[in-house]
């Protein structure tokens, strides 16, 4: 099986307070931010690795995992880390972060998919910076491929994937014929979430994503990483999303103390207007 995994780097969510917005409000100032792979995309990579191996022999890849990201040269760090974790090769689509939106990324991915011809495109259900939750869905529509979003479990079958999605009140199971687009949720990295046809059903993975072992980190330097121009994939680079301004959320106001229940009820009714 050949899997294309789309990875995005995001500003480290643990340091979200470092995000600054200049007084003009025209953009987000990204200087000094630390970058990390979008956690949901890391889970997608882990799922891709599980789907292309026998879980009892994770060093042998049965199939191919190709990772792709969009961004400037520095984003190759994200790709190298993915190669060290187990991906076979990487593609960087050269682009400037502020000249992308979900629609353009999906259109470029479509062109890449037509070239690479993967059996599955995997990605996180959303990126934790913009939380747009669009690319997977738009891509499936453009390709006219079956789609399963928010996957919590994936089981490989002959020519298809059986995808479990956690929905309100239970689990919805979809059988998607290949080729397909699947976006993953966080439980996809639980010990029994993903099984290829080669992995025995008794096998349990470690919880979470795998660590890149040192020899793999060294070997990653020799794995192919190519740069592709965005214009070659998407000649029309017009954006559908335009930003009119940025503002920090208003600071929280201090609370007040009330004398008794009746004052509380009165304030909830007349001031907060929630009753």
């Amino acid at each position, binding site marked *: 099986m050949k899997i294309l995994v789309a990875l995005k780097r995001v500003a480290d969510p643990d340091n979200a307070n470092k995000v600054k917005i200049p007084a003009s409000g025209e953009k987000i100032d990204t200087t000094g931010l630390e970058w990390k792979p979008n956690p949901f995309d890391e889970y997608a990579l882990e799922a891709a690795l599980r789907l292309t191996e026998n879980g009892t022999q994770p060093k042998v890849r049965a199939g191919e995992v190709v990772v792709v990201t969009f961004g400037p040269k520095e984003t190759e760090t994200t790709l190298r880390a993915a190669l060290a974790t187990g991906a076979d090769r990487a593609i960087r689509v050269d682009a400037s972060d502020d000249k992308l939106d979900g629609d353009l990324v999906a259109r470029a991915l479509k062109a890449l998919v037509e070239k690479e011809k993967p059996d599955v495109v995997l990605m996180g259900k959303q990126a934790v910076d913009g939380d747009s939750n669009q690319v997977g869905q738009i891509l499936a529509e453009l390709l006219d491929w079956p789609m399963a979003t928010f996957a919590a479990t994936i089981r490989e079958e002959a020519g298809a994937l059986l995808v479990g999605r956690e929905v309100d009140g239970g689990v919805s199971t979809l059988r998607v014929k290949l080729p397909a687009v699947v976006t993953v949720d966080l439980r996809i990295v639980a010990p029994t979430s993903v099984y290829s046809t080669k992995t025995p059903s008794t096998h349990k993975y470690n919880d979470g994503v795998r660590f890149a072992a*040192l020899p*793999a980190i060294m070997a990653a330097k020799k794995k192919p990483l190519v740069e592709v121009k965005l214009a070659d994939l998407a000649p029309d680079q017009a954006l559908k999303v335009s930003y009119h301004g940025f503002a920090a959320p208003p600071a929280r106001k201090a609370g007040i103390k009330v004398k008794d229940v009746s004052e509380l009820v009165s304030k909830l009714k007349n001031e907060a207007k929630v009753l």
Partner: protein
Amino acid sequence: MSDVVFDLENPTEDHRMLRQMVRNFVRDVVEPQAEEHDRTGTLNVPLLKQAGELGLLGLTVPEKDGGAGMDAVSAVIVHHELSKSDPGFCLAYLAHAMLFVNNFYYASNEAQRERWLSKVISGEWIGAMGMTEPSSGTDVLGMRTVARREGEGFVLKGHKALITNAVDADVFIVYAKVDGDVTTFVVERSAPGFSVGKKTEKMGMRASTLSEFMLDDVFVPAENVLGTVGGGVRNMMRNLEIERLTLAAMSLGIADRCLDIMVRYAAERTSFGKSIAEHGQIQRYIGESFAKTEAARALVYSVARDVGPAKRNRIGTDAAKLFAAPVGKEVADNAMQVLGGWGYCSEYKVERFLRDAKLLEIGGGTLESHQKNLTKELLRKVKQD
């Protein structure tokens, strides 16, 4: 000016990726288990084996022999990051990966590597190193353990003490004198006449174990001699450099973590109607802790660039440990003072770091031994001029 910023802690992309890998390992796996092993005074053996799966146990062994082929800066990175969460476990890692594996590799021949190397790089076997004796520590050449020639080998007799990992180790590097000259031997735990004592209880570094071992006429074949007969001091001195350097990196890790804890606490805690960070006394703890930690970082990482199997840097490594060890202890103590009563309680972790930090002023060379070595080296340079 170029846009490329010189990164002292990560001189190359390999170093940066190594650090990121160790950080992930520490965050997800090491940190959650640290407190329990400190409390029970036990080595987490599966965790050491997991470090083996990640390739960390053969860190400084060349790739052609199954290691990661990394340098002293990399060794500093691993010890620095591990010690931000669990200095006790890091000490056990150091005893295995530096005192045994690194020491063994650079003194061994092909046949010896064939026999032991893959076992200790994978973590299948745990290693330890026996230099110190009950009555000789800093005065290492005063050791009394002897090896007398007999048949195709040597018979070892003696007593080693304060040996990290001895409780759990399968294989030991043992220093003993042959006709008065220090020689390095590999001794397996199963050797007849070899016995390990009870666990030695201690103040800190409790996630690593300490014990003594006795050599009661242990026969060791000649092929277990590392390097040459009488060449033990050379092995010992070469390995002491990376040992001191990585111990200094551990103090830096402790200082970084304790500084982080004290600053976060000071940002939240109020007293006398204002943030404690507005009190000059607290500012002194924070400001001085930061400045000293940064100085230790600069020294440790710059010395690390000059340490390797083919380079000698005794003066640098002595200076790094002499400076960094008290910084680790002082910053941990400052953190406890900033946290007050809460700092003395286990929940905020600084009491554990303070107990751990003290060892680094003693183990792998006391502060006094570094002072002695540095003076000796500096005087020698003057006399050479």
